[in-house]
């Protein structure tokens, strides 16, 4: 990374001038904080004592045997407080917010996972909290909204544009331009202007650092491959970065959705629907049309349903240090089920992309090879989607009866 927050041709800061000083201030505080051992220690402490880190590395004997290839290990970010890796980032940025003396955070959220994580840490740190969420997403993901509200956060429905994540991000940026004096914009993935990609990836790197120690302790050597799903890219950056340039191959799995047509997937690589672009504060591969209008996306997992991608990953992919691949909705549901039945682990649908990718490739490896799949979050949250995908009738009856009882 060079001094202007670039990763190869990606990254940078492309924000309205009004945010310049606020972004500079953040950059300064971030650099100072990271150079201050007591801050680094406080992040580590909160990750341990609040979120329960380290998360384990789980060997999957049954699953490995079923696949008949490499030994499969899972990095269990699902065991974080809040049920996903998102907690790592909000702890870091939350403590930074306190250090900067700001009283309020704003955040964008798609599926609501980052929104819930932000609302949790805001309660914990006594920060005011406003979450921007697309009105469509609010409708689809209301349980998360319910918890954000219960936690005391203000949830603002974003009714512009596609009423989904990218619009929520736009709206959060708009809030920030009016509120930066007392407000930190707590971005949920390693996207956005400098120093967000680096900062979020940095706070998430605890994942990969732990994998290194755990691989040595449990396997006796580094894994041959690591798989992570890629929405904005934060869990992938988190587990990949400590391994970049080592012999471990790093594979990012994007949302292949239900097809290759425009709006049917959320792939920013290996599709000519995505091109280099600049928006939402930074340069990266964006799904867009010929006019440069950002394109609609689809994924069975709301958390991967994003139009751009971390500039860090875009660059690592260009440089051949990370290989990008994707998994389609059906393959994802199959991977979700196979893991669940073989090992009793209910992964988030986002994470199930990494699982699908991992299982595909594990089969081609030998039993003395080892792969690590990042389980970025847990799947309880996906019950509505899964029950729908499986057409489970009793679930509908349960809901209907519940609603009856509420009348």
């Amino acid at each position: 990374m060079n001094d202007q927050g670039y990763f190869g041709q990606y990254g940078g800061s492309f924000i309205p001038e009004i945010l310049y000083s606020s972004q500079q201030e953040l950059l300064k505080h971030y650099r100072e904080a990271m150079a201050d051992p007591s801050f680094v220690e406080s992040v580590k402490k909160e990750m341990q004592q609040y979120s329960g880190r380290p998360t384990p590395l789980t060997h999957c004997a049954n699953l490995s045997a079923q696949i008949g290839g490499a030994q499969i290990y899972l990095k269990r970010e699902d065991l974080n407080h809040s049920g996903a890796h998102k907690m790592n980032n909000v702890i870091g940025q939350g403590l930074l917010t306190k250090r900067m003396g700001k009283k309020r955070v704003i955040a964008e959220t798609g599926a609501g996972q980052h929104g819930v994580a932000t609302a949790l840490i805001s309660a914990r740190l006594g920060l005011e909290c406003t979450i921007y969420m697309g009105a469509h997403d609010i409708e689809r993901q209301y349980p998360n909204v319910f918890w954000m509200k219960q936690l005391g956060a203000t949830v603002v429905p974003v009714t512009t544009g596609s009423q989904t994540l990218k619009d929520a991000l736009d709206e959060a940026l708009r809030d920030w331009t009016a509120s930066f004096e007392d407000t930190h914009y707590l971005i949920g993935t390693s996207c956005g202007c400098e120093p967000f990609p680096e900062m979020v990836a940095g706070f998430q790197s605890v994942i990969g650092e732990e994998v290194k120690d755990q691989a040595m302790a449990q396997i006796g050597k580094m894994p041959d491959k690591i798989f992570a799903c890629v929405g904005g890219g934060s869990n992938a950056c988190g587990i990949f970065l400590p391994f970049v340039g080592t012999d471990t191959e790093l594979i990012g799995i994007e949302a292949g959705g239900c097809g290759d047509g425009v709006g049917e997937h959320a792939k920013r690589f290996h599709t000519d629907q995505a091109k280099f672009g600049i928006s939402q504060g930074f340069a990266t591969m964006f799904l867009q049309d010929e006019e440069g209008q950002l394109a609609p996306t689809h994924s069975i997992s709301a958390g991967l349903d994003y139009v751009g991608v971390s500039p860090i990953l875009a660059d690592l992919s260009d440089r051949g240090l990370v290989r990008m691949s994707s998994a389609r909705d059906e393959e994802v549901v199959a991977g979700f089920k196979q893991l669940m039945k073989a090992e009793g682990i209910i992964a988030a649908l986002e994470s199930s992309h990494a699982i699908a990718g991992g299982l595909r490739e594990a089969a081609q490896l030998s039993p003395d090879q080892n792969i690590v799949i990042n389980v970025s979050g847990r799947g309880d949250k996906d019950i509505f989607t899964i029950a729908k995908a499986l057409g489970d009738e009793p679930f509908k009856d349960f809901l209907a009866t519940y609603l009856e009882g509420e009348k």
Partner: protein
Amino acid sequence: MSTLATFVKQQRQQKSMLLMTHVIYGYPTIDESLQMMTSLLEKGVAILEVQFPFSDPVADGPVITNACHDALENKPKLSQCLADITKLAAEYPNTKVLLMSYLNPILQYGFEALAADMQAGVAGIIIPDLPIDHHAMAAPLVEKSVDPIWLMIPDMSDERMEFVSQHAQGLLYCVSRKGVTGQGSDSQSEQSQLESYLNSIKKHTDVPLALGFGISTAQDIQGIVGLVDVAVVGSALLRAYQNGGLSEFNEKADELLTVQ
């Protein structure tokens, strides 16, 4: 001095304040937007700012954002937009036409291509998400004498003002307050802060100044006579149109033009 700057300075010899009005290309339809533009040109506004809609207009408020999304339904093309406004610019030589859009549509079009296509009739361009730090990206425009119109904001450091000033040409767009477009101004007591802000800009540059964000009435304009050269009215006209169609739009434009 750029044609735009020269134009502004000349006009200002007759008028205490120039008006810069805003229309979104393609809203509510391409034809209707062209009608709005024509209407303003007929009335002789000094500067017409045409926004080419983008899906993610982060520096715009809800009124313009929603209008941009509506406009996108009509699948506007930047090439056609340039052709259309170049034609209008040729028909109304007493008005300078500016393009406003975000970085990504421009990037996909290409700065070189854009410079070539703007050269004929579009005097300048406003790109709110292109910070001054990336001025080099706009070099192809500068080369073809199309003015990139940079933004100044309150509380900017002296150093950064100087940096912007170094690259300023044609016009400088001074933001009058924090936030996004179309949110109305705060108390009158901010007037003195505004003056000292503008004075500090003037220390660095003699490029003409436009003041924007939150100007919506003739009275607002009157209040800044003497402080800047150009008053920028954005969402006020759009709101008028949304309230009462072209006729209310025209009334609003007439009101704004009473300050000469």
